[in-house]
């Protein structure tokens, strides 16, 4: 057993030492053993709508350019001139076929090649003109683009393991391809990055932390109904990824009531999807999911919207958060309006939910100053039973087990999970053509 996590199978108990939230040495080890060897989300392909579009992002502390080149291929480059290091792109987004370093004027195309060096005769004929540096690997699954700084990492689909199924459930909600809307929520939290990872699929905090939101929802619906919680589950997806998933009742209870027009449109849209994907898959699609892809990508499909949240650790007690909204572009005006309203007023940094969470996490971080007197955080809830519900903490323990394995090299004992209820096991209907081929 390491000094970081204490597991007692008998009680049972799972505790995380608060030192991991404050110790710079732990942070440095995380950088090296987790962030240098994982697939890390950088952005969605639809953010780069046209050739030569680019956005700049910081991933694992590295400044990167996420771009579509002149031929339409997605590329990722290190945002630094190979000459002396100045940033090539100093804007958050734009469209350019060439990037010119403002320091000495070296130019590069968005395929990474150097195309112009002022007075290049000064370097002589033998000089090797360097192109842009890049992360070791770039991969994409259903439009979600990841990078890895580890050249020997497993391929992206293998890494994603069971999380692929949940990205499919999100991505299949459009027949023309889900798209990220322009605009980003950006905010920072004075807390360790792992706290927001935990919080992103923590069902237990809902009633207490978001009490004012729930009161508003109760008023809108005319009654309080949190019975959905008993039908929601937490699932270990492998690789440290996990999801907290609910039935359609979860979404109905947690979201503001849709207008009649929006209800009608949504029903019609789902009926069309049903024809394509089959009943079981579309029933699941109508449910909710809080998905965390290890280590720092969150995809939440809840309360009339699909949120993509990326958590960027900066220091042991400070993180930066970016969030985008993923939508089916064929959606009508009324549903779209309600979706945007939810994105702003529920998930936004000034919305009805996120400030509550930020407040909770920042107080946790401040209180860790007393970690000598109170060294452990408890993450045992639901450990005594194989039935893993949303109000338990199995999804977090799943994440922590992977964290522990990477940081210390030691695998912690697993815990049994009951078979998935039929609803959550429903699969996508195979297209008729595929069935015919199989015969």
């Amino acid at each position, binding site marked *: 057993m390491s000094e970081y996590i204490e597991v007692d199978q008998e009680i049972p108990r799972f505790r995380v030492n608060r030192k991991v939230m404050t110790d710079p040495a732990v942070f440095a080890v995380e950088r090296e053993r987790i962030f240098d060897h994982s697939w890390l989300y950088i952005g969605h392909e639809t953010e780069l709508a*046209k*050739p*030569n*579009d680019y956005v700049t992002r910081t991933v694992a502390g590295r400044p990167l350019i996420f771009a579509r080149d002149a031929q339409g291929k997605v590329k990722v480059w290190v945002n630094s001139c190979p000459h002396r290091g100045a940033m090539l792109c100093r804007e958050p987004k734009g*469209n*350019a*076929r*060439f*990037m*010119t370093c403002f320091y000495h004027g070296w*130019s590069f*195309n968005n395929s990474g090649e*150097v*195309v*112009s*060096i002022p007075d*290049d*005769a000064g*370097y*002589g*004929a033998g*000089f*090797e*003109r360097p192109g842009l540096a890049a992360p070791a690997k770039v991969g994409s699954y259903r439009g979600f683009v990841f990078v890895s700084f580890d050249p020997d990492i497993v391929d992206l689909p293998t890494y994603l393991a069971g999380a692929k199924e949940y990205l499919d459930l999100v991505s299949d909600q459009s027949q023309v391809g889900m798209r990220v809307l322009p605009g980003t929520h950006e905010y920072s939290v004075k807390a360790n990055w792992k706290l927001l990872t935990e919080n992103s699929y923590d069902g237990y905090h809902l009633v207490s932390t978001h009490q004012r939101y729930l009161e508003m929802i109760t008023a809108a619906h005319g009654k309080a109904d949190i019975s959905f919680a008993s039908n929601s589950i937490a699932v270990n997806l492998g690789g440290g990824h996990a999801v907290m998933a609910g039935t359609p009742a979860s979404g109905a209870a947690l979201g503001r009531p849709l207008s009649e027009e929006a209800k009608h449109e949504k029903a019609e849209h789902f009926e069309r999807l049903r024809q394509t994907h089959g009943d079981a898959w579309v029933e699941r699609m109508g449910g909710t999911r809080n998905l965390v892809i290890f280590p720092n990508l969150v995809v939440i499909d809840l309360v009339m919207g699909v949120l993509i949240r990326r958590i960027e650790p900066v220091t042991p007690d400070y993180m930066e958060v970016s969030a985008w909204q993923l939508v089916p572009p064929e959606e009508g005006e009324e549903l779209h309006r309600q979706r945007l309203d939810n994105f702003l007023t529920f998930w936004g940094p000034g919305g009805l939910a996120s400030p509550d969470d930020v407040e909770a996490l920042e107080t946790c971080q401040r209180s860790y100053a007393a970690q000598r007197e109170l060294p452990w955080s408890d993450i045992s809830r639901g450990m005594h039973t194989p039935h893993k519900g949303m109000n338990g903490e199995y999804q977090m323990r799943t994440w922590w087990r992977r964290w522990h394995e990477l940081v210390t090299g030691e695998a912690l004992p697993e815990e049994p999970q009951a078979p998935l209820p039929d609803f959550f096991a429903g699969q996508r209907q195979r297209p008729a053509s595929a069935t015919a081929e199989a015969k």
Partner: protein
Amino acid sequence: MARIELGGVPRGAAIVLCDAGALERDAAGFMNGLAEHGYESVAVDLSPTGGDPTGTTDRDLVSDVAVLLGRLGERGWSPVQVGLVGYGFGGRTALLATAEFALGAAVSIAPSGVADAWSDALPPLTQVARHVRTPWLGLFGQQDPGAPADVLARLGSYLGGSPAHTEVVTYPGVARDFYRDARETLAHVASFDAWQRTIEWLDRRVVPRPTPLAAEWQRRVASAARA
């Protein structure tokens, strides 16, 4: 038609499409400005002689641009190494040409005939602008009566669906000749900003011609890749 040929290795080429009847007045200034940034250029006025548009069509204008691209081609410039910069009537021509040619970049400054027909054969630009293949920047004066805000919004939205990147920029408080410098503050600012944006638009998109040493380096890289 006027032409500036640069010594050494020019960065790129540009076709300056002057406003109707303004070649003699404007060409030298525009071309010298482009030359300062490394662009060899030709400048022309494609508007009908004497200002009589009878018989001139948009098809004629685009064909004339094709001829100019051919001239630059004879000097070794490929289409992606060429930028179009058009003013007024030339701005209209530049936008029309972007639907036909995949060039490095194009800029239309105060293009004419946006909301209203120039003549029977030259209908409103909003009716004939098609999806563009060349990244296009449109610069407008807010007080240009020929380009009201609602029309520009429609144009920008329509062109936004093009395969190439487009942008529409409107300068507040200035008329359609905002690109000429003036003492009045807003006009001076608009003139300065418009030129700055024009050069940046070209620099970010027009494919540069490699220097001999750079070309040699590219040959070595290609040769190593084949080996």
